[in-house]
């Protein structure tokens, strides 16, 4: 399928692919086994300038948009979803700054994020606030020239490894969800510590930790935009990062499909390669179709965002739900095509299946997002321009 | 070739001065004089109407004045390396074919057994033994060897293609503007021209080339250790050991050795081992080197490796056999799970007996193996180890 990439986008794709094939592929099994954060690979990704993709040129970035970011995430994910997530979550953590920071804040943080020298993370989720994001309890009380943060964030990707955190906290408890604000908090700020590293089903090389704020004082200059904007910052940030999650799912499914096709061609049963069995062929055909449809949807969403669309909540939600549900199915079917071998950790597909699950949950569960899609659909009375 | 001006015939007319393309003619005390830089082109001879200038065109052969085969006998910490004896043995054959002398050059400090070089075939040994040379610094070696060559003019010089040989011998060749051929696997004398025929592999051994250094001297070659075999030493052989003086102020080292860190990981040194058991990519993971080590222990052998396991970090570089590793020539080389790339064979192909164990019958290693088993090394090697243990009564 031709998607008309520009020269620069083609370059991004080929460089991300080289990193995936030459560096990530040989390391992924061990990183998964040992649950080790992929620092060496992050360095390779940084050296290749991939962190510059989503940063504007005036801040030492390449000024590319959502589509270019999706291409990079997809290529990295094809080798390992955990590594791709570390990269994609960095974009997630950067979006609040990209979208809502002051010029001074942008000058201070974006160049260093672009170089990949310091990673970012987005801190929203809490133990009592998953889908119910409005129910967050972390507070930020203004005290003179500072804000004092108290509370705990849960399940934060890149937690403990990142140095720049964009955190959502309640500044005005009387206003409920509208009383939330967004802040930049740096690692090693006194009062900011991390909880244990979570042990997960999949994406095991990705670091997931609690962020613990205990009378953590930050300068008032670390407020992003205005007090009370936290909810809007969150919504816009998540909208912007949804295609990236979709891209991660596509890359993951692509890798699984390739592995399944290759295996089915060389595995011989009853005197023939299993790829000659119609039942298997139909499975592979369905996997390929759904993957291609998901890809088209994610790319279309990314290009819509890049065209400057003001609102893309519905598209983003559709792309994320469709692609992640597809990836769960494709990776599961890939294990099936591998048969018994697919269940064994010596083969790559069981990891892909384990990696796929989280994508249906984070960044808005696929159930919540269906609510979002339905509401948008009803609001526009099902009509399409 | 010489140029001469007859003062009796020269009238000081100066016709020769402007015609010289190199501007080396002038008049001194009304007589023509040739300065340095004369190329013997003869333009002045043509210009002189008094026949006062003569150029003697003597029939001189290329390489005239260069005689003798030299071997750079490398040593380390006072001990001569095996390659020194191997090259003296081979050099002796070359010298005999040319009907000339074989000399060895030995530079270092407290070098033992220098007479052995004579036993192996050298007629002379030029020996520079001085504490200043104990750090093996190449600036000093380059300077000393260069001096010796300029003084004594050998027609051939061969040296070991060791780290040191490959580092300082090219420097000597560069300064002498002479030809150097690296990693020769064959040396011979062309019966007609009496020139050195140097044969070496290129493209990792896929193509062999024979090279000559026709016009420049000395003709220089480096040879890898264990490519040639050392001959038999003859205790009765007589020769001269000539002490070389060197003025320390004249030759200084720009590099300084701060410290040396020895690699102690090998119990049996690979280079000198009589039996080597090697593992390759077919081992699959680092722990499986245990299988190789077990067999090596029973045989009293050294453990070797092809390049992939070293690249993967399964075993250290000091065990690597091959083009960018060590060249070995043991009595017995057992290759387990090694495909036999050209680069690996370059490092062990001259072993007396090669045994290959590989599950791929098309693996190139079988083309050089004396004996082979096409099979699963994980079954064959442990079984072999057990069998040998039992037959040797080792429990």
């Amino acid at each position, binding site marked *: 399928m031709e998607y008309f990439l520009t020269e620069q986008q083609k370059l991004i794709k080929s*460089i991300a692919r080289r990193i995936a094939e030459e560096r990530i592929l040989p390391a992924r099994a061990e990183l998964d086994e040992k649950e080790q954060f992929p620092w060496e690979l992050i360095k390779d990704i940084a050296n290749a*300038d991939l962190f510059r993709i989503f940063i504007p040129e005036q801040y030492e970035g390449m000024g590319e948009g959502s589509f270019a970011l999706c291409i990079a995430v997809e290529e990295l994910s094809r080798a390992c979803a955990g590594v791709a997530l570390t990269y994609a979550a960095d974009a997630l953590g950067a979006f609040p700054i990209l979208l809502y920071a002051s010029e001074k804040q942008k000058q201070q943080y974006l160049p260093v994020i672009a170089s990949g020298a310091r990673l970012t993370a987005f801190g929203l989720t809490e133990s009592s606030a998953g889908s119910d994001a409005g129910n967050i309890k972390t507070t930020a009380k203004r005290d003179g020239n500072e804000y004092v943060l108290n509370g705990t964030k849960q399940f934060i990707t890149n937690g403990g490894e990142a140095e720049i955190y964009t955190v959502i906290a309640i500044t005005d408890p009387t206003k409920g969800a509208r009383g939330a604000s967004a802040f930049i908090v740096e690692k090693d700020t006194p009062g900011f510590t991390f909880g244990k590293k979570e042990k997960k089903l999949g994406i095991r090389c990705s670091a997931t930790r609690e962020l613990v704020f205990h009378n953590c004082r930050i300068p008032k200059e670390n407020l992003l935009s205005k007090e009370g904007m936290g909810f809007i910052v969150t919504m816009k940030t998540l909208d912007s990062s949804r295609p990236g999650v979709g891209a991660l799912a596509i890359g993951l499914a692509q890798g699984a499909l390739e592995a399944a096709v290759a295996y089915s061609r060389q595995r011989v049963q009853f005197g023939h390669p299993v790829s000659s069995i119609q039942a298997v062929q139909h499975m592979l055909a369905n996997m390929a179709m759904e993957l291609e449809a998901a890809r088209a949807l994610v790319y279309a969403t990314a290009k819509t965002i890049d065209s400057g669309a003001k609102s893309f909540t519905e598209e983003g939600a559709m792309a994320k739900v469709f692609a992640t549900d597809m990836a769960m199915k494709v990776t599961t079917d890939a294990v099936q095509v591998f048969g018994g071998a697919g269940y064994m950790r010596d083969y790559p597909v069981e990891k892909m299946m384990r990696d796929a699950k989280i994508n249906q949950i984070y960044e808005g569960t696929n159930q919540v997002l269906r609510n979002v899609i339905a509401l948008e659909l009803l609001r526009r009375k099902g009509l399409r321009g | 070739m010489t140029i001469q001006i007859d003062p009796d015939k020269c009238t000081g007319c100066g016709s020769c001065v402007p015609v010289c393309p190199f501007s080396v003619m002038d008049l001194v005390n009304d007589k023509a004089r040739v300065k340095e830089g004369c190329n013997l082109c003869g333009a002045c001879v043509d210009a002189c109407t008094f026949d006062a200038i003569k150029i003697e065109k003597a029939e001189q052969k290329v390489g005239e004045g260069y005689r003798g085969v030299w071997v750079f006998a490398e040593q*380390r910490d006072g001990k001569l390396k095996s390659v020194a004896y191997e090259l003296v043995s081979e050099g002796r054959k070359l010298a005999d074919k040319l009907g000339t002398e074989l000399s060895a050059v030995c530079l270092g400090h407290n070098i033992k057994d220098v007479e052995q070089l004579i036993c192996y075939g050298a007629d002379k040994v030029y020996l520079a033994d001085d504490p200043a040379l104990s750090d093996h610094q190449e600036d000093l070696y*380059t300077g000393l060897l260069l001096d010796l060559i300029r003084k004594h003019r050998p027609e051939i010089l061969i040296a070991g293609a060791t780290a040191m040989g490959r580092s300082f011998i090219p420097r000597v060749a560069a300064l002498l503007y002479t030809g150097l051929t690296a990693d020769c696997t064959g040396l011979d004398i062309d019966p007609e021209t009496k020139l050195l025929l140097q044969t070496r592999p290129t493209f990792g051994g896929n193509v062999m080339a024979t090279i*000559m250094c026709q016009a420049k001297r000395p003709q220089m070659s480096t040879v890898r250790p264990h490519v040639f075999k050392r001959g038999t030493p003859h205790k009765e052989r007589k020769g001269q050991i000539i002490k070389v003086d060197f003025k320390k102020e004249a030759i200084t080292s720009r590099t300084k050795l701060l410290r040396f860190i020895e690699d102690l990981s090998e119990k049996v040194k690979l280079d000198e081992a009589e039996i080597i058991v090697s593992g390759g990519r077919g081992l699959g993971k680092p722990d499986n080197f245990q299988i190789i080590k077990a067999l090596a222990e029973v045989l009293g052998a050294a453990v070797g490796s092809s390049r992939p396991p070293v690249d993967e970090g399964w075993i250290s570089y000091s065990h690597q056999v091959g083009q960018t590793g060590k060249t070995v020539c043991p009595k017995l080389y057992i290759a387990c799970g090694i495909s036999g790339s050209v680069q690996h064979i370059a490092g062990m192909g001259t072993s007396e007996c090669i045994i290959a164990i590989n599950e791929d019958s098309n693996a190139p290693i079988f083309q050089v193996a004396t004996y082979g088993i096409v099979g699963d090394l994980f079954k064959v090697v442990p079984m072999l180890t057990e069998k040998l243990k039992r037959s040797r009564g080792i429990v």
Partner: protein
Amino acid sequence: MNIVVCIKQVPGTTEIKIDPKTNTLVREGVKSIVNPFDTYALEEGVRLKERYGGKVTVITMGPPQAEEALRETISLGADEAILLSDRAFAGSDTWATSYVLSKAVTKIAQYEIVICGRQTLDGDTGQVGPELAEMLKIPFISYVSKIEEIKDKHIRVQRMIEEGHEEIETTLPAVITVVKEINVPRLPSLRGSMKSKTAKIPVWNAAEIGAETDKAGIPGSPTRVVKIFFPKREHKSEIFQGTVEEQVAKLAQRLEKIV
């Protein structure tokens, strides 16, 4: 710090064509790569630039198609690249090559260090590094596995030899050759790749670098290849047949006779 890196474009070894007239390699039409050992040299040069500031200039002597290899080095972090190309350079042996390179380095004039790979895939001699150093009349250290420090015009390195490692110090400028243990070369970067597409790569010929043509190419080379042949592998090996037990038994029998 001004760093010069010498690279060579070599053929991918699967296709080898020899010109029967000159007994040298036919380079046109063969897929070419940057000599793998030179990628370590380039990486080390770029790391030095990142550590101490400065500029990396890559040079190579080759036919016009060698420009491709130079562009690749720019995508890998080189700041500038220069192609040394002239009909007169063709067929150079290591002496003539080192001579041409030395003239180019001399023309570059401002440099603290020259870095080369330890040997090429096709020639395998490893001679150009040391010969170049001698022609430039500067110190030389081979098989460098680590650059410890550069300070006050001195460089301290670790060097790999058969017996272990030496720690050596010398003055700059100097020439070093590096082994692959020294680093892991980076992959091309986005900005580097874009820069390499538009970079201007000057071509210097013999006149430009003041190289005497009788010291380059075939006339300038003291060595000449007089014959090329493919090694014969007439070898009969005995492959043991039978069950694993039978194979091992036969092998063990042979072994007992040898050891």
